[in-house]
Structure formats: structure tokens, C-alpha cells
């Protein structure tokens, strides 16, 4: 067990070093662009995991926070006449707005269970898109432009890369802290059996709402970074119906219910998606491809890369014998805290 922890720690260090060195080795703006957007989506995917991965409530309304974060920064920078790097001071404001929106959103949507919840998040998402189109302060379908940032092209992408990397690392740390805390256990208890969790004294409504607010705040923050990176937002790009589907696809590909899976999925899908967009031959096929990849993943690898892969590794190491002798409990399996609920994420 100890060597396993050591390899795990070593692996994290290696990944971090590679992530930090990446823009120094590949200075080409096209390459760093892939890096920035992949990290933005990785942050959003891990934020999705904090709520949906832990509780099992699949949210298709994260774009509400993403777009609201972007619009908050845009509107505040415009109305307060902020310039250049001072605009970054608005990031906490975006996160706060995301958290503020998450409270009523969560209070309404979390009154219903599971699949009705998914539908309600979609409905609320469309309300927000409509508001972005119709309110006077959002400039309608023209959207908003960010203040001009006078960085030269090469450090421009690199600077944003490190900002996005900081967000990703911070979000992973938050997700990890949540996952190993009592709070995280309560969330997973809700995922396994909400009624039983309530019976055991978990304040389900409060716990779910808290996770939803954390997830919303992070998504709004990264939405603001995304806005300043691209310099613009329109209602259909900020509040994009494909945004949530893409997030869910990333998480399911990587491994539903695990932080590393969410991260890995985002780092695979987003560069792939960007690459497809640059191929003139494949122009117009990206929706078909996104849908197709999604179907393949759900039908043939429903548990994702990380759980399937780690199971395979365990099998190799133990030469087919079960690593832990199977328990002989009769009746419904209990979700004890020591159970590796991360790897059982997509299996149920």
C-alpha cells in the first residue's frame, strides 16, 4: 500500500512538472492555445465532478455558471471602465456571482430527484440563455467584448496557460479535499442511497446545495478566465447547450466518479475537438463526431478509462486472483467508508 502511495505521489509530481514545462517547450501559440482551452475544460470537468460525480445528480446546467461568470466579468469591466490586467481582479467577483446564482438554482432544482433534476437544469439553462439574449445590459446577440490586453502573442497564451493551470490545480485540490472529507462521504452516501443517507442523519438538502454552490463558483470563475482569454462572449457561446454535454462526455470517457478520470477525459476530448475543427475535410462533422464518440463510450466503456484501466492493472498485478478477498455479506451491500467508492463510480 505504501509503495502504491509513493508511485501515486510520484505520478502527480511528474504530471505537474510536465504541465508546467509544456508552454516552455512548445512556445508556438497554436500549441499553447490547445493547452489553455484543455485546462479550462479540465477545471470545468473537475468542478462538475465535485457536485455531479459525488452525488450522482447529473447536472446539465453548468453552462449557466460558465456563461454567468463570463458575463459578470464583461459587464463589470465595461461599466467600471477597467483596463488590462486590473480586469483579473474581477475573478473573485465572477466566482461570487456563480455561487449566488447556484443558491436559488440549487434550491429549485434539488427539490426533485435524479432524472427530473437533469431536465430542470436544462430548463433553467434555457432561461439563462434567453436572458442573455434579451436583457438590456447583455448587449443581446452581439455579446460582449473584453478590454484589450496588451500582451504580445507568445506570452499572452503562456500567461493564460499558467492562470488556467493554477485554476485546474486549485480545483483538483478542492475536489480532493471534498472527496476525503466527511462532507464528501455524505455526498457519496446520497449517491448510493439518498433515503438511507437521510435516515442515517445526513442533511441531504444542505449537503447537496453546498456541493452545488462550490461547483457553480468554480465554473463561473473559469468561465471568466475563458471570456478574457477569447476576448468575447455571445449568448450562444457563453450559454452553449453543447457545453454540458461535452463536460459529461469528458467525465464519462475518463471515469465517472473519479477526479483523475474527469481530468483525463477533458485533456483528451478538448484537444481532439479543437483539432477536428481545424481540419477542413472534417468541417461540419464535429457534432456527429461528438455524438458518435459519446455513444461508443456509453455503450462499450460505460465506466470510463480510469476505472477500467485500474481494474486491468490490478488484475495484472494479482495475476487474476482478487486483490481483496470478496466479502461474504448477505443482503444489500453496505457503502462503508473504506469501500473504494471512487472506482465503483460508473459500475452501478
Amino acid at each position, binding site marked *: 500500500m505504501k509503495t502504491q502511495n509513493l508511485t501515486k505521489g510520484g505520478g502527480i509530481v511528474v504530471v505537474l512538472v510536465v504541465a508546467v514545462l509544456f508552454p516552455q517547450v512548445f512556445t508556438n501559440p497554436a500549441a499553447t492555445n490547445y493547452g489553455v482551452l484543455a485546462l479550462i475544460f479540465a477545471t470545468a470537468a473537475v468542478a462538475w465532478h465535485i457536485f455531479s460525480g459525488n452525488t*450522482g445528480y*447529473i447536472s446539465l446546467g453548468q453552462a449557466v455558471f460558465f456563461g454567468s461568470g463570463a458575463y459578470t466579468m464583461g459587464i463589470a469591466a465595461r461599466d467600471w471602465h477597467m483596463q488590462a490586467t486590473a480586469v483579473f481582479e474581477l475573478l473573485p467577483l465572477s466566482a461570487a456571482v456563480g455561487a449566488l446564482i447556484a443558491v436559488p438554482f440549487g434550491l*429549485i432544482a434539488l*427539490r*426533485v*430527484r*435524479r*432524472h*427530473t433534476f*437533469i*431536465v*430542470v437544469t*436544462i*430548463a*433553467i439553462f*434555457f*432561461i439563462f440563455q*434567453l*436572458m442573455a439574449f*434579451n436583457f438590456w445590459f447583455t448587449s443581446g446577440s452581439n455579446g460582449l467584448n473584453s478590454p484589450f490586453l496588451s500582451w504580445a502573442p507568445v506570452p499572452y497564451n503562456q500567461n493564460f496557460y499558467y492562470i488556467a493551470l493554477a485554476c485546474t490545480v486549485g480545483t483538483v485540490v478542492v475536489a480532493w479535499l471534498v472527496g476525503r472529507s466527511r462532507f464528501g462521504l455524505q455526498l457519496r452516501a446520497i449517491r448510493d442511497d439518498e433515503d438511507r443517507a437521510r435516515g442515517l442523519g445526513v442533511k441531504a438538502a444542505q449537503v447537496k446545495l453546498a456541493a452545488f454552490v462550490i461547483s457553480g463558483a468554480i465554473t463561473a470563475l473559469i468561465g471568466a478566465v475563458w471570456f478574457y482569454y477569447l476576448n468575447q462572449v455571445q449568448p450562444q457561446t457563453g450559454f452553449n*447547450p*453543447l457545453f454540458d*454535454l461535452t463536460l*459529461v462526455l469528458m467525465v*464519462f470517457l475518463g471515469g465517472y466518479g473519479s477526479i483523475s478520470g474527469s481530468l483525463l477525459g477533458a485533456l483528451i476530448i478538448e484537444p481532439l475537438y479543437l483539432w477536428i475543427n481545424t481540419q477542413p475535410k472534417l468541417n*461540419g*462533422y*464535429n*457534432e*456527429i463526431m*461528438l*455524438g*458518435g464518440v*459519446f*455513444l461508443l463510450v*456509453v*455503450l462499450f466503456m*460505460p465506466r470510463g478509462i480510469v476505472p477500467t484501466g485500474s481494474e486491468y492493472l490490478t488484475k495484472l498485478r494479482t495475476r487474476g486472483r482478487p486483490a481483496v478477498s470478496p466479502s461474504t455479506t448477505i443482503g444489500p451491500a453496505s457503502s462503508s467508508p473504506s469501500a473504494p467508492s471512487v472506482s465503483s463510480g*460508473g*459500475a*452501478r
Partner: protein
Amino acid sequence: MAGEITRQIVNGILIGGVYALMAVGLTLIFGVLDIINIAQGVLVILGAYLSYSLFNKAHIDPFLGLVITIPAMFIIGVVIHWAFISRLRGGERTSMTLLVTYAVGLIIEGILYKIYGASNVSLQPRYVNSSVHILGVYVGWVYIWGFILAVALVVILYALLYRTRFGRSVRAVMQDETAARLVGISVNKVAAITFGIGVAVTAVGGVVFGETNAFNANSGYDLISRLLSIIILGGMGSVGGALAASVFMLTLESVVTIWQPNWAVVVYYAALVIVLLYRPTGLFGQKAVRAQ
């Protein structure tokens, strides 16, 4: 002013009938299979495009063309069920099917976009602009025909559900799948046919939608969000609830249009949110029957 309000109410009821048909398909699929078919909106657009092609290439009237498009959509539905939905197992099945149907919708949308391009089209048979004078207001014939057809089909669906052997097995599966299996009902067959029927009604929705709106491959999103609101409001799985909710919502929306055309759609979602605050199971949903 009063005339304007009457006109909008009549319009709302007539369009509401057509939406009811599309929503009944959705709620039926949910009731029997525990599936939310996110692709329903795109399938309506697919139905509209099928009628569009038949009309422009073979000069078949969209309403007559239903003889072809309804069976075609039925087959598409059965194929979608067979290829993707029947293969999913396990406790997360409902959430997974939701995502799968989303992906299917995305693929259909992509294909439609490839074939027909991004520009808006609409179905334009000769009679599309002719109207008739009823209750002191002018009402388009398209709306009337659509409404009559929708009501007829809902009645047929109702009869199918409550007067036939097949309907009895559908209701048995709705109540308790395991018990239905035990008494010898082929649940998979019932599920496939129900999914087919739920998709087949989108052909009719497509014709009326296509004759009253300009549409392109993207139009499905607006439709599906409305349809979802309707079935949640009516109580998921309740056919009567879907009927009442769609007529109510569409009337409300078209009355609000008089004062606030841009914000009329918000009425939908606002009504949904308010109802959910007080009755999380929707207006006609039964908590005990459908434990989620």
C-alpha cells in the same frame, strides 16, 4: 384589444393541441421505459424535413405525406431503441439513456445540417396562408387541421392504451415492470413499440411546426426545452397531464406575446419553476406510483 386576446387564446389552444401530441409521445416513453428522450425535439425537425423533401421533390402534400412519414418515424424510433437504448443496463440506466438520446439527437442534427445546410426553410403549400373566420377572429387553416389531427391521434392513442390488449400490457409495464414480465408480457417488445409510437407522433408535430415556423437543424433545442417543461409540469408519465399542461402553457405564452413578444417564452420556465416549488411531482404526477 379584447379581439386580440381572443385571437391569441384560440391560437394558443390550437397550437397547444399539436404540442400535446408531441408531449404525449415524450411522456408515454417516459412512463413505460423510464427514459427521457432528449432527441424528441430534433426528431420533430427530422419529421419536418422529411415532409419538406417529400413536398419539394415529389410534390406530396405534407398532410397526405404523413401516410409515409409516420411509419418512417416509427421505424426510426424502433431502430434507435434497438440499437442504443435496449443495450443499457444497471442502476444509472435512466441518466445514461438521457445522455444517449442527447447524443443521438446531436448526430441527427449534424446529419440534417450536412444535408440541408444552416439556412431556415419552411413548408409552403398553397393553403398555408389561407384562414377562416371563427369567433370573430381569423384563424389559419393549418392550425385547425393540425389541431384536428392532433386531437384525433391523441384519442387513438388513448383508445390504444385503454381499450386494447397491447395497451393493457403497456400499462402493466408502467405500473411494475417485473410483475409484467412475470405474467408473460414481453417487456422488450412493448418498450420498442412504445418508443416507436412516441417517435412516430413527431411526424405530425413536424408538419404543423414546419408550416407555421421557419426551421433549421438547430430548431430542435427550443422545442425540446418546451416539451420537457410541459411533461414535467403535467407530471412525468401522465398522458392527461401532458394534454392539460400543453394547452395551458401555449395559451399562456400566446397571450403574453401581445405585450412582451421577447419574454413570452420565459413564461414557460417561470411557470415550471413555480409549480415545482409547490409540487415537485408536477400537476398530475403521482408520487407513490412513480418513486424516482
